[in-house]
């Protein structure tokens, strides 16, 4: 079980959170201008990183806020004070 540090509530048990996948994926400003391949890449393709991974979490049963954390996908260690 992970101990996840909510930026508002502090360390809480993993069971209070939901995972939101890879962070920093920006929605294209003009989806109509994209090819099907580019749109599919935005929708479905993720980096599947081995090592440090920036990812989204939501404190679902707590303050219900979304935030981004950096985690090592091998050791499951979160990076302290990552920006």
């Amino acid at each position, binding site marked *: 079980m992970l101990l996840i540090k909510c930026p*508002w*509530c*502090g360390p*809480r*048990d993993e*069971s*209070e959170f939901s995972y939101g996948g890879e962070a920093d994926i920006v929605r294209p400003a003009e989806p109509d201008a994209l090819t099907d391949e580019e749109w599919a890449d935005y929708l479905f393709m993720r980096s599947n990183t081995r090592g440090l991974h920036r990812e989204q979490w939501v404190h679902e*049963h*707590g*303050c*219900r*806020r979304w935030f981004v954390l950096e985690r090592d996908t091998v050791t499951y260690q979160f990076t302290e004070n990552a920006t």
Partner: protein
Amino acid sequence: MPHRPQRRHALASFLNGRIAPGPDHPGMQLEIHPDHGYLNLRGDPGDEQFLQAVQATLGQPLPTIANTFTASTQRGRISNPSPSPTSSHTIFWLGPDEWLLVTGPGKENGKAEQLGKSLSGQCHSLVDVTGGQILLRLRGSQARKVLAKGCTLDLHPRAFKVGQCAQTTLAKTSMLIAQVDNTPTFDIIVRRSFAEYAALWLHYSGAGAM
């Protein structure tokens, strides 16, 4: 006298005596307070005008420290459950821009009107969520132990004190837990549809903890 519809709440079976509202033991008492009013307020805590308008209306500041609450009477004590014209209210921090205002029984409409007036023209959201919650009060020397059986929160007195609250899960049910005094007494605000399950869980877990 005009006819006033009676509220019927999700824990009627407890109060009708079919299930004892116990366990009535010095180590733990469970009380059910089904009649409070609840308002959900959202706004920008960085906006002085917003903070002042709320404070002027309610006579108490919005808690801006995460996971704390402010009460209008004695610190940390939710208003007396019996209907009274002077019923007070408690404000819980829910998120960086979100609060839960718990009013005395039947006071939610008046408070919503007052707040709506003083916040008119300002960016805010005010929603009456009275129909959705119930307050359970757990008190006694064993109360902390009983909560700890089903909750992953660090409930040790050095980590969770009077004046603090937390939204968390107890026995997989989302709820808000607040410590209101050093008995200790915990106020638990739970969704109406989960209230019977949560109350029964506390009832039987408490019995086992004695």
